């Protein structure tokens, strides 16, 4: 049961950030495709957005690590 909790915590917690990151990068790539000259303006903003999205997955990972250390 405990192991199931650990696995579910990170498994389900990484689902929506993955979708979010895909959407962010997809829109950034579309924008770069339309206007290749604006790459240097688009890229830092994409990295910023990626950080926010990935942070959610990291929260889930920290919970599962705490559960591993606890049991």
């Amino acid at each position, binding site marked *: 049961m405990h192991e199931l909790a650990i696995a579910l915590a990170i498994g389900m917690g990484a689902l929506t950030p993955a979708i979010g990151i895909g959407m962010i990068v997809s829109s950034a790539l579309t924008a770069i495709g339309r206007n290749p000259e604006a790459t240097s*303006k688009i890229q*830092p903003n994409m990295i910023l957005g990626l*950080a926010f999205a990935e942070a959610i997955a990291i929260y889930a990972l*920290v919970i599962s690590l705490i559960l591993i*250390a606890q049991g």
Partner: protein
Amino acid sequence: MTALHISISAETVFHIGGFAVTNSMILSVVGTAVILGIAALLGSAVQHPTKSNRKVRALAEMIVESVNTLIEGIAGKPKTALFAPIFLSFFMFVLLNNWLGLLPGVGTIGFNENEEEKVVVLPQRKPLFAHIIRPVQATSAKIAEEIVGEPVEIEGTAATEEKAEIESKSEEEHTVFVPFFRAATADINTTLALAIISVFLTQYFGVKFQGMGYFKKFFDFSSPIAVFVGLLELVSELGKILSFAFRLFGNIFAGEVLLTVMLGLTKLVVPMPFYAMELFVGGIQALVFALLSLVFFNMATMGHHDE
């Protein structure tokens, strides 16, 4: 495979008087010393230009120029001189501490310490519905005892499992492996401190550019909705502290755990891509921390001019 001992918090290595020095503190002092060394080197090269330190000066100018261009693109020219040192400080500190955690010997060279009773103990897990199951098991054990005539140990009940655990613990010598070094940013204390500094600097810049009217963002009593929005903003600031702290801690600590597990499973060649990924992640997280701080500083100084 022997059980991996993953410690979320940094372990104490030695004590100075009453002050416990942890393994991440040691590396953070080393990281700070490296940064000061680099700063002294570049600074003296720029201040005393000679023919021989051309390349050092070129490196310094390259760093400063790229940072200034980046910040100008986000914050605009007047605020660049104000934000650039802080941006670069955050970036260098986080980057160096992330990468120092990847050096050979960090996390692997250490000593064995006897497991002692710690003051703060995470609650041990209890089985689901323990408050229902245990009395039932106790009564059934009692009934079995009356039938058989002597104390009965039923396998699988909580009482017998606890007994077995206590017995096995008193038999084994419990030693815990404590590494001498640990990445400073893999310690939640360091990342929390950095996050608090960053968010307080945001407030400081807000007050500096907008005066005390900056706090109207949080306490706006013009309409009930504005009060609610202000409350949300306040909670969001606290959320930023936690977000900064856990993003950095989670990335670096998870990277450490990943490398430990990978090196435990396969040797030498297969963990190499993971090592490369950790280098990359260390760099990206440093950049993200500094960039995000910069963006929040900028937002704090701008106010509602564009609304």
